[in-house]
């Protein structure tokens, strides 16, 4: 960053002086009484977010509104505090602990309370730019100067802001408005000399006022001008220019066609969330049985109510209408085009006659299971600057159901609740600030009235967490960081402040054991990528952690990769299995690791039972295990700054996000597998909020001696032995699902197929070519006595790149077809 060191010191000093001069004792007193319990005595944050250095405070409207309305588990103070009180508290917060934001007056609070904006009130700075409400606004062309320019009725020069052309809305909000005053039309607008009235118009500003436009350009006055004819504003920024009578009509046809769901507009970057886009509710005629705890704990055989059907994440359906003998008669019933490109990874989740399928760009469809008709849909209006904060594809992995609601986690790190049958948005909670690199792609997990989520961001130096929200209200119940803070056990595995930006993000749904009352979550790589920059084990990165779902307390952990320096996220399924091993029953947890090892742990305390390689490329990074389960990693497998090593698998992993399926009938885990290696060298990285924080050089390859880079394989969990392995040239980068009918279903990115394998032998017994690469979680459910198979198809996301690499390696032409769809299949005879 810039020489913040010195500037910061001087700002600190200034702000303390400022606070002393401006602040009566009541601001601090009121803060201590009302706010400190959540935000900390020094604004450092605890239950509530930190206020020291909180960039949201830049916007006085947001700040005042937050105090007035509350939300996100913060109470509303609209009734209990007066405008004076709130102004005092807000001003104290804005000028303390190093904050240096403009103070707030009680007039401004009153304006926001009345539904207006703080920026419409200027307590002590009445400039010629002020436009009183009653006066008509005049826009005049002045041809006496060269070049001709636009002026207001007082002869003050008018300006335009080039950023406004991106959306046709005003991109100038606080603090921009302290330098540029929007030309507000309170009364009539008059076209002065040389102006065609048809060129004048207004747009609505975020605070509800109307701003005058000329040829579509919102007009502003500059605070730098003090007298008619001044043009001092022109020199202050390259993004501002004097408005001219001849300027071109603002071009608004700039819809980004490559981002189907990210519509233009959608409010100012970094501003608090604007109103949500309209949903189009259609009356759903069927009944909707609420999703209760009981149904989630013990689903009917025909239910598929969550990510991988059960809390165990087994992706196992006890239905057997479709089986090895009749699967040849499996045919499509309907397909639904999502109209969205990029990787479709979600399972279509079904309750009765309603299906909830998500698509990339945080898009959600409610479909009529019987017909495939759209009941309602929600397309998130993502901020245009969200894409840089998402590392690996604008994907979504599905919804959670609870009660009569549907829960969606979005790429801009919000958690949303919808009424299931109408699509009405019930609440919208900000989980994190997406501009810091937090993005949410996972399916939320509903446990006993709580909705559990985490966020990705391991490439952006975030500090990972699991958080639980009240399913009814969206209030935050607890939030547990997956990197311990100072004083917490494990913090000593991080040197200095590295724990603050160490990764351990959460981006695949966790599992849950109701008997042990523990929920298990896998964590991502450590950040930055080079382990040499943060010597130590770096708990709990590349680990599984067991949390008490009532409190969020971490009860136990196992670290798959200490001091990760290979980008080995171990986020995928931590699948719960109850098996008999060596004659003893075992409450097991299995995991097909990104590092290429298959693990069995004892889930009561996360003790290591075994780890065994399930890939073939060599040398594997992890060469074995100590007796206590700590992986053995030779020094020559560890890259460093200036030291490159060749290890397998490559950072994409032998398995990535898709995990495995487990059948209690066979006792086998079905593991999609791919082979790869990489040459990787450590690199330096500087942390900057919201920027990638990686710093390694790598190249990925498939070893020459491997003719096949992919497999779907069955591993006997009790022994760790591979029972069968269906090899194929292309990597298998799609999730699997297994049924009591003895079938394993899984997709293929390369040839666009959904396939069924014999669960006992691995023989392919059915295949169907869809519209696009299949990388979604297949599901099975029953309705009206018919068993269905459903899956999403839609090529994209970074994992699809592994297939492109294999195609290039083997010299196979690869013509991916883009386009997303939900597919539903059933037996011909059953319908």
């Amino acid at each position: 960053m810039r020489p913040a060191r010195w500037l910061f010191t001087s700002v600190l000093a200034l702000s303390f002086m400022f606070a002393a001069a401006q602040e009566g004792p009541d601001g601090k007193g009121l803060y201590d009484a009302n706010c400190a319990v959540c935000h900390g005595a020094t604004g450092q944050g605890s239950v509530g977010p930190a206020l020291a250095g909180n960039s949201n405070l830049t916007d006085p409207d947001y700040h005042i509104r937050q105090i007035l309305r509350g939300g996100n588990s913060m109470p509303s103070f609209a009734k209990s505090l007066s405008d004076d009180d709130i102004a005092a508290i807000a001003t104290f917060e804005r000028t303390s602990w190093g904050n240096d934001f403009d103070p707030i007056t009680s007039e401004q609070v009153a304006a926001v309370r009345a539904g207006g904006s703080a920026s419409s009130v200027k307590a002590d700075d009445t400039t010629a730019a002020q436009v009183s409400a009653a006066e008509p606004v005049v826009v005049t062309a002045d041809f006496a100067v060269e070049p001709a320019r636009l002026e207001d009725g007082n002869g003050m020069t008018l300006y335009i802001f080039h950023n406004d052309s991106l959306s046709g809305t005003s991109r100038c909000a606080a603090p921009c408005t302290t330098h540029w005053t929007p030309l507000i039309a309170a009364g009539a607008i008059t076209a002065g000399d040389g102006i065609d009235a048809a060129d004048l118009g207004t747009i609505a500003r975020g605070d509800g006022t109307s701003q005058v436009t000329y040829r579509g350009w919102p007009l502003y006055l500059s605070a730098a001008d003090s007298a008619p004819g001044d043009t001092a504003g022109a020199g202050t920024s390259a993004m501002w220019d004097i408005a001219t009578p001849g300027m071109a009509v603002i071009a608004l046809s700039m819809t980004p066609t490559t981002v189907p769901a990210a519509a233009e507009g959608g409010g100012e970057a970094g501003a608090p969330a604007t109103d949500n886009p309209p949903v189009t509710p259609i009356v759903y005629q069927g009944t909707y049985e609420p999703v209760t705890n009981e149904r989630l704990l013990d689903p009917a055989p025909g239910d598929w109510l969550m990510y991988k059907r059960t809390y165990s994440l087994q992706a196992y359906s006890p239905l057997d209408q479709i089986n090895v003998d009749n699967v040849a008669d499996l045919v499509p019933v309907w397909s639904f085009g999502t109209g969205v490109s990029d990787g479709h990874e979600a399972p279509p989740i079904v309750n009765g006659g309603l299906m909830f399928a998500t698509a990339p760009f945080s898009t959600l469809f409610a479909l009529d299971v019987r017909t495939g008709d759209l009941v309602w849909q929600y397309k998130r209006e993502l901020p245009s600057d969200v894409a840089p904060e998402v590392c690996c594809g604008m994907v979504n992995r599905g919804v959670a159901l609870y009660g009569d609601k549907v829960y969606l986690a979005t790429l801009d790190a919000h958690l949303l609740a919808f009424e299931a049958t109408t699509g009405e948005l019930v609440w919208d909670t900000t989980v994190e600030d997406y501009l810091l690199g937090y993005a949410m792609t996972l399916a939320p997990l509903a446990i006993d009235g709580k909705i559990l989520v985490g966020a990705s961001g391991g490439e952006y130096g975030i500090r990972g967490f699991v958080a639980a929200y009240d399913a009814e209200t969206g209030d935050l119940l607890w939030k547990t960081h997956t990197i311990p803070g100072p004083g917490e056990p494990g913090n000593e595995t991080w040197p200095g402040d590295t724990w603050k930006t160490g990764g351990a993000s959460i981006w695949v749904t966790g599992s849950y054991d109701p008997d042990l009352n523990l929920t298990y979550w896998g964590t991502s790589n450590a950040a930055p990528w080079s382990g040499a920059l943060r010597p130590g084990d770096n708990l709990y990165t590349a680990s599984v952690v067991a949390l008490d779902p009532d409190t969020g307390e971490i009860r136990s952990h196992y670290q798959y990769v200490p001091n990760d320096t290979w980008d080995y996220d171990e986020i995928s399924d931590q699948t719960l299995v109850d098996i008999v091993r060596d004659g003893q029953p075992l409450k097991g947890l299995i995991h097909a690791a990104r590092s290429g090892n298959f693990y069995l742990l004892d889930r009561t305390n996360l003790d290591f039972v075994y780890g065994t390689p399930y890939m073939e490329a060599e040398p594997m990074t992890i060469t074995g295990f100590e007796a206590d389960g700590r992986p053995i990693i030779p020094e020559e497998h560890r890259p460093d700054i200036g030291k490159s090593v060749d290890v397998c698998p490559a950072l994409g992993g032998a398995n990535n996000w898709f995990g495995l399926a487990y059948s209690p009938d066979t006792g086998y885990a079905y593991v999609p597998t791919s082979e790869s290696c990489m040459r990787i060298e450590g690199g330096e990285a500087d942390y900057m909020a919201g920027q990638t924080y990686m710093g390694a050089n790598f190249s990925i390859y498939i070893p020459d001696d491997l003719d096949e880079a992919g497999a779907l394989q069955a591993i006997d969990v009790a022994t760790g032995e591979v029972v069968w392995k269906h090899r194929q040239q292309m990597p298998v980068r799609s999730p699997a699902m297994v049924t009591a009918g003895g079938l394993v279903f899984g997709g293929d990115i390369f040839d666009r197929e959904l396939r069924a394998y014999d669960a006992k032998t691995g023989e392919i017994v059915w295949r169907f070519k869809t519209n696009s690469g299949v990388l979604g979680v297949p599901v099975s459910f029953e309705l009206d006595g018919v068993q269905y198979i459903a899956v999403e198809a839609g090529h994209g996301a970074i994992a699809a790149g592994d297939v492109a690499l294999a195609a290039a390696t083997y010299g196979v032409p690869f013509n991916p077809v883009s386009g997303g769809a939900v597919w539903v299949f059933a037996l011909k005879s059953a319908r």
Partner: protein
Amino acid sequence: MTSLARFLLTRSWVRRNLCVAIAAIGLLATAAVEAQTGPVTWELRVCADQDNLPYSNRAGDGFENRLARLVAEELGADLTYAWMPLPRQGTDAELMLRLGECDVLIGAADGQEPFLNTIDYYSNATYFVTRSDGGATIESLDDPRLLGLQIGVDRGGPLDFALRSRVPQSNLHHYLASDGADAILRDVAAGRLDVGIVRGAAAGYFAEAGATPMTVAPVTPEIDIPFLALIQPITMAVRRGDDELRDLLNRAIAARWSDIQALLDEYRVLRPAVTAPRPALGTGVPDGALLVGVVLPSQTGARPLLTENFEQLADAARRGAVLADELLGDAATAPLRVLLTSAPTPDVAERAARRLVVADGASALIGGVGDGQAARLATTATDLMVPFINVGDPAPELRQGVCRSTTFSIAPGVDDYLAALSDSLNRADPHAVAIVHLDTPGGQALRERLLLAMARSSASALPVHEVAVEPGQPYYGAAFEAVRASGSDAVVLLLTTDEQLVFLGQYEAAGIGATIFPFPDPGTQLRQYYWTLRADAPTTGATPRFAAWDAAVASTSFSAAYRSRYGQQADAVAWVAYTAVQVVQQAAESSRTDGIGLVRALARTDVDHALDDGMTNARMGADHQLHAPIYTLRLTPPAAGARFQLADITELVGAFTPFGSEVEVCD
């Protein structure tokens, strides 16, 4: 091909590409509306910083602005700008150039992927800057005094890395491009830094201008261990594939060398001495050679950009044109040279076309691959009074004879393809035919033309069943049922390239016996596509296919030369582009070689054009369509053990020479 791009580019590239594309598009809109280009001018469009003196700003005060003006003046061009985002980030310049927002970057380090660089016109060296009253004059990175000083340096550059191994991290202060070129200097002047390390341009421009006296000394050593070069040659950069523009700029840089150096002096750009280049001006172009401009959206980087944008087709066409230059260029009569340009969008295609004709003196244009490119090149060529030879677009609107008097097509048009398809259908003699078409105005129009073609080619009327489908349908089950129910034993597939692939993949499994007659959308004539189809639909893929050319056509000088030069067999579009150059040359042999002369000669319908297939004499029709054969092929089944050979996967079944359609009334 987006997946390939997404993966193989680094993650950070991937995460940025969408947003930058959007930002770039937005900025284009805000860029000032610059001078209108008329028929006799051309536009030199430069991507530049809005506020980054001494390099560039919106007012044009930077030395890169002045350099751009100088080059534009030398070349007789209208200079326009596309402004880069504020703050500019790492890949913005690359993306804007590749997306076609502009054609030139003025200051680019030599050898930086994926650009094509001109000769370098100065070297970017770095300098230590200290306050003159501060005592310490630092001249070497290895000066031990650096250990105790506060040092400012650009983040992530070679100097940053050279320093990280030498001085404590806490003494290093990193600056970003968005901080402004003078940020380090200001902090040195204000005493916040002891030493600044800055590029020569900023060192000279700001150090002497400021109120605080500064001492400036070149950084040594010039090469850090092991290979870290601390001096970068600076060039102008164009898109990969824009060879012609690179050559033009090289000529301008050489011609104005002393002016450029004087300008750098005026801005006090500190730099090591560089000797004047001697670019090979006009080497090897025979006197009076015919210059043929090629305008194609070929691939501009190691991976394709955001979407499938015809890059495969364009690259194949480009190879065909290059081969024509090689084989035909030095002919005794009408020697020619092919000038290659890269045009990702129709706007860029128009700029390239104007430049080719106005600045280079090209008298014919070849292109027409990619959405909207043929239509734009057709109107531009009319403005410029040169012939446009369409090698990629089958649209009927381009084949209006005198109504589009300067447009000629070597690529077969829709009507020619449908005539060949109807002829083949006729020979198959089905009982009934099902027509699968899009339920869109375009789809309806294509169906109408098919019905006309069928009526022309067949004496007896065939029962026809129509099956309308939606664009981009995931599943064609209902269409299959309609085909089955109709009892048709032939299906004409009027879908786009990708839709055909999805349809045929599912049709294979649906077990319907009816033979498929696919419309040969240009994308379906790529050999890569053949391979995928053969794997996806081994049975239905083996039914007749139609193409403007195939490697299975009897061995010719073209096929042999193509194979030996590129190590692969030619795609149809490569043959078409090769033939386009050849036909222009044949026209030039019998006429003046200016644009009007060529238009007249090409429009003659009574001249035989001998093609390089060794057997065909083709004639231009009144519709300005060259009536060359359309081939009927069959994909051979995959041979065991030879899974990935692209060679010999087709068999030639027949050939059909269309007669052309009637010329429609001018719009």
